[in-house]
Structures are given as C-alpha cells and as structure tokens.
C-alpha cells in the first residue's frame, strides 16, 4: 500500500480520538480533552489533505501502478482533466468527500476558535463521527490507493463525457453542498443532546446552511448545464435517479432555510427545523447510497458495490440516534406558540414546508420505484419523465405562487384590508401583463399562469421597495438615490432574500421557454444546402478535421443568418478520443449560440462519406435565464452571508443571547414545574 493509504489510517485514528476526547471532554467537563480533540481535527485535515494531494500527484505523474489512476486517466489526458479525474470515480470521490468533511470541521473550529459557542464541542464531535464513518469506507471498501499488478503501460482514460469544463466544477460544488449540510445536522444533534433547542443553534449554523444550500444549488445548475452542452439531447434535466438524488436534499434544504425564519421570528417549528436538518443530511447520504449501491440503474451510477450496504448502515444509525433524541426531547421541541391566524406569514411558511415535503415524497417514490417494484414483483419498473412532470409542474407553480404572495403577509396576522392594499395593484398589472401575452400569442395555460404569477411576484417586491422608498424620502427629505441605498441597506437580508426569489423566477421563466416553446427539427444537408429553424437560416459549408493532443475532432461548419444578416458561424463537432489502450470513444459536442432571447442549439447527429450530414436544430427560448437566475441566487446568498458575518462582528452576541436567555428561562421554569 502506498503512503497515501497510511495517511488515511492516521486520519482514522485521529478521528476516533476526536470522538472520544470530544465526548469525554463534554461528559467530564475537561477543557484539556476538548482542546486535544480540536488539535486532532487539524490532524485529520492535514492527513487527509496530504493523502488527496498524493493521489493527485499520482495522477499527474501517471503512476499506473495505482489501479484508480489507471482506471480514470491515460497519458494523453490534459492536465486540468487529470486533476478533475481525482474525483471522477467512486474511490476518489469518496476520498474527496472525506477531505471536505475534515476541511469543514477544521474550518469550523478555526472560525470559532475564540467563540464561546457552547455547541462547539458537540458539533465537532458529531462531525468527526461522520468523518470517522467516511474514513472507514475510504480505507476498507473504496481504497483509492489500491495497487495494480502488472502495471499497465497506459491507463484506460477518463470517460470523454467527463472531459468538460462543467465537470471540473459540478462534482466539487455538489460535494460542498452535501458536506456543508453536515454542519447544521451536527448542530441539530448537538441541540438535541444538549437540550438547548432555542434559536441559538440555528443562528450559529445559519451561514453554514446558506453556504451549503447555494453550493448545492450551483452544483445542480452546473449539472444541468453539463447535460445541456455535453449529452447532446437539447435538455438539461431528465429526472434521472442520480439527478434526483442531488435534488432531494436541495428540497429539504430549501424548506429548512425558510423554516428557520419562523422559529427565529415566532419561536415555532422547532420540530420542523430539527427534522429538516437531519433529513437533509440523511438525503445526501441516500443520494450516495442510490448511486453506489447498484439498486437503481442510471446513466450516472457508479455501479454495484458493497459500499451501498455500509451507507445503509450509516443511515440506519443516524435515523436511530435522531429518532431516539427527538423522542427524548419531545416536550422541549413543542412550540411555545401556536398559529393564531390563517392569513399570516407563519401559515404561508408552513404550507411552503408541506409543499416541499410533498414534492420530496413524490420524487423519492418515483426514484426508488424501480427498486421497490423489483423487490415486490421481481421486475424493475422505471417511472418516466411523464410521472415526474405531471406531479411536479402543478406543485412547482403553486410554490411559485407562494413565493410571490409571501411578502404581503405579516408574522402572526395579516388583515384582509392590508392584503388587498398590497395585492391590488400588482394583481391588476399582472392580469394586464397576461392579457398582453395572450394577444402576443402565448395561449398555453400553464405558461400564462407561470408568467402571470412571476409578474405578480416581481410587482409585489417592487411595490414594497417603492412604498418604503417613498416613506423614507418623505420622512427624511432625502434624494431618491440616497433613500434607495438606505432602504436597501436597512433591510439587506430581506431584499437579498427577494433577490434570491427573483433568481428563482428567472429559472421558472427559462423552464417555461425551453419546455413549452422549444422548436426542433432534424435535417440532412449536402454541402452548400441550407436549413431554416425559427428566424434562423443555416448554411452548411463544410466538414473539417482537427487533431488535438488526445482527440481527433470532426467539425461541421454552418453559417448562421437571421433576417438576411450573417450572425456568425456555428461548429457542432464529434470528438474521437484516442487511448493507447486501443479504445476509441467519441462524444457529440453541440454548438450553442446564445442570446438573451433564445439559444440556437445545433447537434451533428450523423455524417456520411460524401460529407453530407444530418443535423438536429433547436431553438430554446429563454434558456440563458436559467444560468443567469443561478447567478442571481448566488449573489443574493452571498449578500446575506457577508451581511451576517459583518453583523456578527459588530454585534456578536445580541441575537443569540436574547433568544438563549428567553429559552433558557423557559427551560428552567419547565424544570421547576416538573
């Protein structure tokens, strides 16, 4: 075994020590043990970091005596993909995950090194227990340093589909999301163990949760973008089990991010928050279980392995401990307050959570259906796109409606008069907007509904900002711009939240455009012939060849015209990847010409010896807004995190202390009562 493997063993010993020292330090109230545990966390991180660096070094130096390196790279692989190959396979991705776990834990104790966070030892101990489990997997079932004999002269190469820029960032982003949700999970368990179920654990874990959520959001969008440009079928989401596996924790994570606000503002939904944080963590593990157990076939799946059993054991253990602790703390988890009025933000958040859970169940059932059908009738029956779309589209539209009207509700109670006041103008404008759309030819009911609700959401946000701005200008006698800056600054979190909502609306618009108004045709052209799609005219010029370091590229060149004006050239390709091991694998590389209105998407479907070629042409309206929407969401979350860090620095204890005192007071009273 190589040195990298021994480093993993050392990290394993260090994680075991952290668990013992952390737990014993808490139990015996010995600060020295807690301090030692923290040093051991740095040790874990250092050992796993060195280990993954050694694996990367083995890839760069083409050390094919390591089986994993031989399986996922070859001599012709460019450096950037050689490095991304570290997490291209099962063993490497598990090591990468483990490394992120240790890095997050080390970062957690570093960031909180001067903090008086009473949850800290609990959190890093739980976190280390998760790391401990992953190290068991990395060492005993998925060792990436396994030797290969005899040593082959070259590797088998990286799957050409993974040789794509999106694939460099998509897996790390997803893993950041998965690992990031370990922190709120650890806080939830810490709160349950400690019996402090005030909002403190939510405040402390807030930024970690938001970071995990945005990483998972970006990871999913990057995956969609990869599918769009690399798989060459013109779509970006196919409800594949592995895609669903990363969507499931996103759904509960999104519900959790919203639900936190209710507990913070109304001291309700304690049980929801604890369960959602645990569920999100469990779903990150379930996703990995689905992809690695071989229970469900998928284009992405890593294939059958005994890893699935170990993940199942880990999930079982987490469920057992969590359920035990929830039952143990049941009385403290009951909310101090109850929902008093139906027309309130409290209810809209509760409905929001319920909708997310319904969507989760629908997708989970659809994803696991093949496994259950095999179990009961001995045959894998897969639920197709139709099943998922039929249920998720109306739920999605309802969620958009909730998103749009939520800002008009106040906590506890909103009067009907107030609702009418806030809703009237946006509603009238939205109806007018839908009417205009209808005249312009948008007759698809669900599209009109989505676009109408989207306009309602934007109008409600706009009207709120405008009202605040007018009030401020009148009361302070300020200029428009200065007032606007003050208004936005005073409500940074709220408006950053709205910015995230606008990002989501942009994604909805892209979904409507690309699914309902997509234009597609397939045509075979001889050189010099032309094809027309939408307002585009494409003239097929020639078929050329190019030789790169690791591939031969066949390029079809088409001139693109619109309204008799040449816009440029598109070059759909077919890449033939060479490998010294004798295999030739190819990928179809689409050509995409984007603008704010639509994407022109050209696929080289096939070609003949006489240089005639068959093309699939598509016009995907509003596609680019999906990626812009992702960017807007990221910006919104970034603003919230920066604002939160800044606020914590200026007033570090105010928020936490108030809530802690309040809740501690209640706990003491309850204890006295008993």
């Amino acid at each position, binding site marked *: 075994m190589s040195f990298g493997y021994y480093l993993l063993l050392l990290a394993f010993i260090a994680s075991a020590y952290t668990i013992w020292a952390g737990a014993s330090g808490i139990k015996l109230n010995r600060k020295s043990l807690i301090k030692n545990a923290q040093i051991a966390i740095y040790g874990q991180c250092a050992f796993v970091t060195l280990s993954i660096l050694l694996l990367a070094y083995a890839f760069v130096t083409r050390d094919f005596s390591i089986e994993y390196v031989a399986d996922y790279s070859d001599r012709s692989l460019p450096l950037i993909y050689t490095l991304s190959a570290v997490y291209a396979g099962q063993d490497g991705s598990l090591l990468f995950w483990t490394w992120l776990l240790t890095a997050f834990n080390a970062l957690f104790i570093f960031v909180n090194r001067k903090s008086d966070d009473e949850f800290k030892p609990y959190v890093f101990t739980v976190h280390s227990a998760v790391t401990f489990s992953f190290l068991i997997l990395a060492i005993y079932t998925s060792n990436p340093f396994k030797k290969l004999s*005899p040593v082959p002269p*070259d590797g088998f190469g990286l799957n050409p589909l993974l040789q794509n820029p999106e694939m460099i960032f998509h897996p790390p982003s997803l893993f950041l999301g998965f690992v990031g949700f370990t922190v709120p999970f650890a806080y939830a368990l810490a709160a349950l163990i400690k019996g402090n179920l005030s909002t403190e654990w939510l405040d402390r874990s807030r930024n970690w949760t938001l970071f995990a959520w945005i990483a998972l959001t970006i990871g999913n969008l990057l995956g969609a973008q990869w599918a769009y440009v690399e798989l060459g079928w013109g779509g970006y989401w196919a409800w594949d089990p592995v895609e669903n596996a990363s969507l499931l924790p996103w759904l509960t994570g999104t519900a959790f991010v919203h639900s936190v606000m209710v507990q913070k503002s109304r001291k309700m939904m304690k049980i929801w928050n604890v369960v959602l944080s645990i569920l999100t963590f469990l779903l990150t593990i379930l996703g990995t279980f689905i992809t690695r157990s071989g229970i469900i076939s998928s284009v992405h799946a890593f294939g059958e392995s005994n890893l699935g059993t170990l993940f199942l054991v880990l999930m079982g253990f987490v469920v057992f401990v969590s359920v035990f602790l929830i039952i143990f703390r049941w009385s403290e988890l009951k909310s101090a307050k109850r929902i008093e009025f139906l027309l309130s933000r409290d209810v809209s958040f509760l409905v929001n959570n319920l909708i997310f859970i319904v969507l989760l169940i629908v997708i989970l059932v659809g994803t696991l259906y093949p496994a259950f059908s095999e179990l009961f009738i001995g045959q894998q029956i897969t639920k197709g796109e139709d099943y998922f779309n039929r249920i998720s589209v109306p739920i999605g539209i309802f969620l958009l409606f909730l998103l749009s009207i939520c800002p008009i509700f106040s906590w506890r109670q909103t009067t009907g008069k107030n609702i009418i006041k806030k809703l009237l103008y946006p509603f009238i404008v939205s109806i007018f907007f839908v009417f205009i759309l209808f005249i312009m030819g948008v007759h698809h009911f669900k599209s009109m509904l989505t676009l109408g609700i989207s306009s309602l959401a934007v109008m409600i946000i706009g009207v709120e900002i405008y009202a605040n701005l007018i009030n401020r200008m009148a009361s302070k006698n300020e200029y428009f711009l200065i007032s606007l800056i003050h208004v936005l600054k005073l409500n940074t979190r709220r408006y950053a939240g709205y910015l995230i909502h606008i990002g989501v609306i942009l994604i909805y618009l892209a979904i409507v455009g690309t699914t309902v108004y997509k234009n597609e045709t397939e045509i075979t052209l001889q050189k010099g012939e032309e094809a027309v799609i939408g307002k585009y005219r494409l003239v097929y010029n020639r078929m050329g060849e190019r030789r790169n370091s690791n591939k031969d590229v066949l390029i079809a060149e088409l001139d693109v015209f619109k309204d008799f004006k040449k816009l440029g050239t598109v070059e759909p390709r077919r890449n033939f990847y060479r490998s010294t091991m004798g295999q030739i694998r190819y990928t179809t590389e689409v050509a995409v010409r984007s603008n704010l209105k639509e994407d022109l998407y050209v696929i080289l479907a096939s070609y003949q010896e006489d240089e005639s070629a068959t093309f699939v042409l598509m016009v995907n309206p509003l596609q680019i807004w999906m990626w812009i929407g992702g960017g807007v969401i990221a910006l919104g979350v970034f603003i919230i995190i920066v604002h939160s860090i800044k606020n914590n620095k200026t007033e570090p204890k105010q928020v936490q202390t108030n809530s802690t005192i309040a809740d501690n007071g209640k706990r003491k009273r309850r204890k006295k009562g008993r």
Partner: protein
Amino acid sequence: MTISYKIILFSLIILYSPLWSQTGKLTGFVYNGSTDSSIVPNVDVNLLVYRGHSLIDDSSYTKKTDVRGKFEFTIPELDSSLIYYPSATFNSIVYYGDAVRLTGKLTSAASDVVVYDTTSNVDKIVVQLEHLFIDAEPGKLYFREIYIINNLGNKTYIGKHFDQQDKHYTLQFPLPDGFQDVEISTEEAQNWLKINGKSLYHTELMSPGSRQFSFRFAVPYKKKDWQLSRPIIYPIGAINIFVSNPELVLEGPGIQAMGDFGIRGTNYQRYSVQHLMPGMELILSVKNLPVKSISLSWIVLIGVIVLLIIGFGYTLRKSKS
C-alpha cells in the same frame, strides 16, 4: 469488317456479357486429404450462404459430387454482399472449402473441399507452443494459458469417450487442485471447451492443421511456495512462461530463466521449458509468493474499536465517580 461479322461479334458480346447474365457459378472438387488427395465421388456438398457473420441460407444449394469428385452450383442472382462456403460431409464429419464472393465482375469461382479419414490415434497430436502467464495476488495465483495445437497427421482425430459417458473429447488439459474462476477466451470456444472433473476438455474434432485457443483460471494458496505438477499428455515443443510479479521466483526441472521480456509495455520475467514428452511431468515451483496476512488496516480498525470501548468505559466510570 462486313456487316454480318459485326452482327456475329455483337451477338457474342451480348451473349457473354456479364451485364446480361447476372447468374453465378461456383465449382470445385472434393479431395481426400488422407489418401494422396484422391477425388471423392458421391458425397453430399452443401453451399452455406453468409451475409457478414450471419448464416442466411444452408439448405437451398445441395449437390452430390460426380464420378470425378466435382460439384457445381449455379447462383441465380448475384449479390456482392454474400459469401459462399462449400461444405462436404464425409464419414459424418463436415468439412469446409474456402470462402467465395461472387460479383458482377466475378461471376464464376472455384473452391475445393478437402476431407479426411478419421482416426482415434492421438500420436499425431502435438502442442506446438504454449504460453503460460502467471500473476500473483496475495492468496491467489492467476494462470492464463495460450495453446497452439497441431494435428500433424493426415486424418481427422476424433478423440475418446469421457469415462462412462456418451461424449467425446479430443484434448485434455489437467488443471491443478483447487482451481477456480475458469474463463474461456471467446464465446465460440466456450462451446467446445468444457470442464469435467479436474480437467478442461477440448471436444471438437481435430482435422489436420493447427489451431489456437486460450483460457485462464485461478488457484488459491496459503504459503509462500506453491508447486504445480502436471502430467504431459501430448508432446510439447516449448512452453514460454511469463511472470508479471518481479519478486516471484520460478524453478523446476528443465526450466530456464530467459531474462525480462516486455509485452505491450508490461514487463515480465520470462522462463522457458522445451521438448516435453507424454509420460513426463511439468513441475513448476513458484517461490516467494506474497502471503495474505492480517493487514495493517484491520489491525488498526480492531485496535481503534477496542480503545474506543475502553476509553468510553473509562469516561463513564470517571463521570460516575
């Protein structure tokens, strides 16, 4: 040239033009290769028609050879994508001629079929060359054997019966005790290489000439040394032995080390043993094998679990006191 000559010449061109006669002709003789290539009259000849690797017709064209041992088939419509194989059945054994493809340019062709008498005498069967690849993993040795076998005689070797079974085999390859995971190289070979007891048997009849096939298997071991003793059944010209693990040492009577040898970039230790005759034994001693031991990782796992139990026990006791 007079007009009448021109008419005759034109008629001849028309008459013999392949453009007008798109039928084809396949002829050939059936010879007996066991008796100085004497012709074989009155045997059934069948024409097999293939498109690519698929047999599309095996019954439309059937003839018997005439007194001169000749057969002739007329193909009514030519198709250049079709391949024709004449096959003759002699002593209940089917023999094949060479492949023929008929096109608009080549409307007639010849393909002879050579048939043989049969024999159950194994004397002419020899192993011309054997390549033996050895690869060791802790606890398991992997063998891959490639055989080039020759029937040096002029009769088809029909083999022997399996003990108390109504099945024939032509070649026997004894496998070492404890063999497992036998893999036969091609799907086609899986039809005629069968395991029975402790041997692998070749069940196809052996007409004169050579053939090649390969298979692999594994043998578990426990100690650092392991020995293969295999009886020699057929004369063997030479065995090349390739060992991938550089630390392994191979010894045995007649075995010579030939230095390192690279195959497709992979380095092997090469050994050779030559001229083995039936009645002899091939003895291979493989030394310095990697032995399976309790790995460090399992020692660490057990150690960590034990220490955690002791540690938490200590903590609980301490907290109570």
